[in-house]
């Protein structure tokens, strides 16, 4: 008798009985930036406020899926980092709440994000989209360095370009939306299909192409320039190009989850993450994004947004579900299976 009980009861007892502690000065953070940056943020916040932070790193897609699934009884208080689109989706679905943070010192693109979302999400950093090529591979194969988006259709790059699939990657969706805003929809798709002839693989993850370019698995990659700077500064032979036609950018964001259990600490976190002193430290962990507070210091290696020709990226339009679905299904039809050179 007793042994049988052991199985049934232990399992059930175990199962239902352990609940996390929610004391007053605690904060649960899901972080969608790089691990080392997340660690730095947590350490700084704990030191400054004494709040005990529990942090887990998840990619933006995973974080959004979890916030959605937990919406009735959220276990996360604040979602920090990661590209702005999913934060905007969360805001429009009512999954996040306004933080009421003061935005006077923030740069335009950051305030813009806050305005679109009724204050539910705020921009913390920005990074421009760009090209990178492996200089060793390029000279070995006697290829010319690309300078513009349109250079990529050149047949000399056949099988040498790698970019992510916009169906799975926010980075690649930003690229798609940038092309549409730069060239108009029809021309954008024909250009993408032409570039597609040279693409060797549409990767799942947005940061994969640049890593492949760094290691020489592909010659040219499309992705965010701050990722490329980080790879180049860690020793890979990558050269970064800001395309001559101009380019789009992402804005990383922070949001407080709706029904957060530790609202006060969450607000402190948002305040802390916009503080110039905090933002200026990001370079310590090789995060070369441009910080959103005008008083923060920008790392010299960071891609200088002032010298890059940036388009006036329309987050409201291209972040909306309708536009997104339309563009993606057209991408599937026109670009995905385009014949290769």
């Amino acid at each position: 008798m007793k042994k049988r009980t052991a199985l049934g009861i232990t399992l059930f007892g175990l199962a239902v009985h352990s609940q996390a502690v929610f004391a007053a000065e605690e904060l649960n953070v899901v972080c969608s930036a790089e691990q080392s940056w997340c660690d730095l943020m947590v350490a700084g916040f704990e030191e400054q406020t004494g709040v005990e932070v529990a942090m887990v790193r998840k990619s933006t897609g995973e974080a959004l899926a979890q916030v959605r699934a937990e919406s009735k009884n959220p276990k996360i208080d604040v979602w920090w980092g990661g590209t702005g689109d999913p934060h905007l989706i969360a805001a429009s679905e009512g999954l996040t709440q306004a933080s009421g943070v003061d935005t006077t010192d923030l740069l335009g693109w950051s305030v813009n994000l806050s305005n679109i979302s009724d204050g539910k999400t705020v921009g913390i950093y920005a990074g421009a989209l760009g090209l990178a090529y492996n200089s060793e591979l390029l000279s070995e194969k006697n290829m010319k360095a690309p300078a513009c988006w349109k250079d990529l259709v050149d047949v000399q790059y056949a099988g040498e370009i790698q970019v992510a699939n916009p169906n799975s990657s926010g980075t690649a969706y930003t690229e798609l939306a940038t092309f549409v805003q730069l060239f108009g929809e029809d021309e954008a798709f024909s250009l993408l299909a032409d570039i597609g002839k040279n693409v060797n693989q549409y990767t799942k993850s947005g940061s994969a192409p640049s890593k492949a370019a760094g290691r020489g698995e592909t010659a040219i990659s499309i992705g965010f320039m701050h990722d490329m700077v980080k790879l180049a500064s860690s020793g890979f032979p990558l050269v970064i190009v800001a395309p001559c036609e101009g380019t789009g950018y992402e804005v990383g964001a922070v949001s407080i989850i709706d029904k957060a259990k530790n609202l006060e600490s969450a607000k402190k976190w948002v305040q802390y993450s916009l503080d110039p002193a905090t933002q200026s430290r990001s370079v310590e962990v090789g995060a070369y994004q441009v910080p959103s507070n005008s008083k923060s210091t920008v790392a010299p290696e960071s891609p200088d947004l002032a010298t890059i020709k940036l388009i006036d990226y329309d987050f409201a339009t291209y972040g909306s579900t309708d536009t997104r679905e339309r563009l993606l299904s057209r991408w599937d039809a026109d670009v995905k299976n385009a014949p290769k050179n």
Partner: protein
Amino acid sequence: MKNKSLLWLLFGATGACLLPWYALEDGFWAFTWIRSLSDPEYPSALVLILEQSHWWLMPPLVALVAGFIAIMLPMGRKGLSRMLIAVSLLGSFFVIVQGFAIGLNEPKIFLSLLEGSSAANGQPGLGVGAIMLIASFLYLLTIGIAGLKKGTADIFIIGLIGTIITLVGVFVFFPIAHVLITAFETADGGYGASRFFSRYFSGEVWGLNCLVGDGVCGPAINSVFLATMTGVGTTLLGLTFALIATRTRFRAKRLLRILTVLPIITPPFVIGLALILLFGRAGVVTEWSYALFDIEKSRWLYGFTGVYLSQLLSFTPIAFLVMIGVVEGVSPSMEEASQTMRATQWQTFTQVSLPLMRPGLANAFLLGFIESLADFGNPLVLGGDFSVLSTEIYFAIVGAVADTSRAAVLGMVLLTLTITAFLFQRWWLGKKSYATVTGKADSGQNSGLNSGLKWACYLVAIPWAVFTAIVYCMIVYGSFVKLWGYDNSFTLEHYISTFGVKTEGGLRFVGSAWDSYITTLQIASIAAPLTALLGLLTAYVLVRQRFAGKDLFEFSTMLSFAIPGTVVGISYILAFNVPPIELTGTGIILIIAFMFRNMPVGVRGGIAAMSQLDKSLDEASITLGANSFTTLRRVIAPLLGPAILAALIYSFVRAITSVSAVIFLVSAKHNMATSFIVGRVENGEFGIAIAYSTVLIITMLAAILLLQLIVGKRKLRKDTRVQNTENKTRLVQANI
């Protein structure tokens, strides 16, 4: 029967009257609930009814009281059984209904009935008291069912079946139902079948365009092709290794065994990364063959070939673990009988030994097939444009267009494939008997392999083992170089940043990986024994007992294995985030997810091993007066040494290395190693990922050796040496 019923009634009453009804915020193991005996903050059901007018808790308690009355009444066995069944069904029904009716913050159903009452504020999830009450109802039910049967019905067996069904129901069917419902969601938020069918059968999923011209096949077709190839490949390799390990006098068996176990303890992505560094366009082998033979550097690795190669590397060990128990178990007396009748070694092998290994072959293939279908890490790293269901499902959930409904439909497709494979396996095994461990005396010499087969085995296994070894050397090497694949200067910084310790001011673990490392080990060591126990008990019930709905029962235990981890992860969040069962954010949810995901391996291994044990062993034990429980413990369990070991090792290792299910279940307080590693890989910090993986591999190796010591080796026969004609005289002398 009355005594047992009384015991369970008292157990339930303790839960209802003394222990806290609701889940506690600081957890069971804080033992603050002990104070509940006096502290009003942790009220039992009885206190809740009396003092806080939680009248909806009355009916279950009334049912419990009715149970007490029933055993007091002078009634026949049948009458009492019926009463117990009625009482327990009603009681558990009331507990479940109230749990779902009143949610965390407000009532969910019966709104008009509950309006304005104390239910308006909602209630937390079920706690220890509620669990005890439900358990008592469950066992009263099984006692009742046993009482209705003729003859000496076995309460232990029925209780066991009841327990497993309940657990599988709560932790497999309940969450999965949440996700499957979304498969039938229509675009406007309603439910309907038409969209489901059009999506299920769509050409995007089942397309066959790759057969004509240069089109692309649908992920379902790709998955089936890959899984079949992997299933066949791993089974053959597993058989080869098992034959070498048991039927030859190969000298480096031990080394071979370690090599076959290595891939199973390797965290995801690592094999893929190593393959890229060997065979990628900038890989070592590619560079050499370019320099030496002028073979053009190409990207052949990305796509089917790469995924297939890495899956063979990853899953051969599972086939090996299943096969070795079975190959060992084939009784020498059968083989000797065959040889006495002048069959050659080759004939004996193909016509006696091999058919007797069928359960092993079938189970190994099924595991390989399903593992390949559900595999997520390898296709993600090496898949290129070769899309399979598991990755499609993942990106349907987390991609730029998050569409849970599409993910659920693809999940159904995957499930269909698994069911088909499962039925196919059943058909192939048929109804033959594979029992060869009979308890009768036999001489204990398995026949050796004929030399052709032996060399064929060596030719396959040795190059494969060398290849595996090279891949692992690359991995270890990678953890010590600065920038893997580019700057190959020696460094220790990856290890220091992950597992650094500082000694000043006491020992401090400053490395960034310590937290997740310790959590991972804790969770894996709790989950492993529970998983093995659950899996083997289920196998015992399946092999040794006959009951209605057995096939369905068997399939349901395989279900969670068949469903892709990502879907399991999401379904657990959906099901266990709100009362009545609130588990998200705890370590418990990870343990449970691992238990029910990895249990099928224990079940398959247990079934394969147990179908070799002749039923006369059980019967002998029962005849001598032992009950089922004693028989299981004293006769069956000791003969299942390898199966227990395999189940323990597998569940421990899987808890450490699985990634797709845990991605959604890890929380800030309970982060797992794989989720940490995946983050580093995403970031291109390969050195750190590899260093962490190396530490995990060493940890798991140590754990496996420890387990092997604890479980010990089963001794089927006095002497298990392999027969070998040249050495026969020596063997005979040794036997004397």
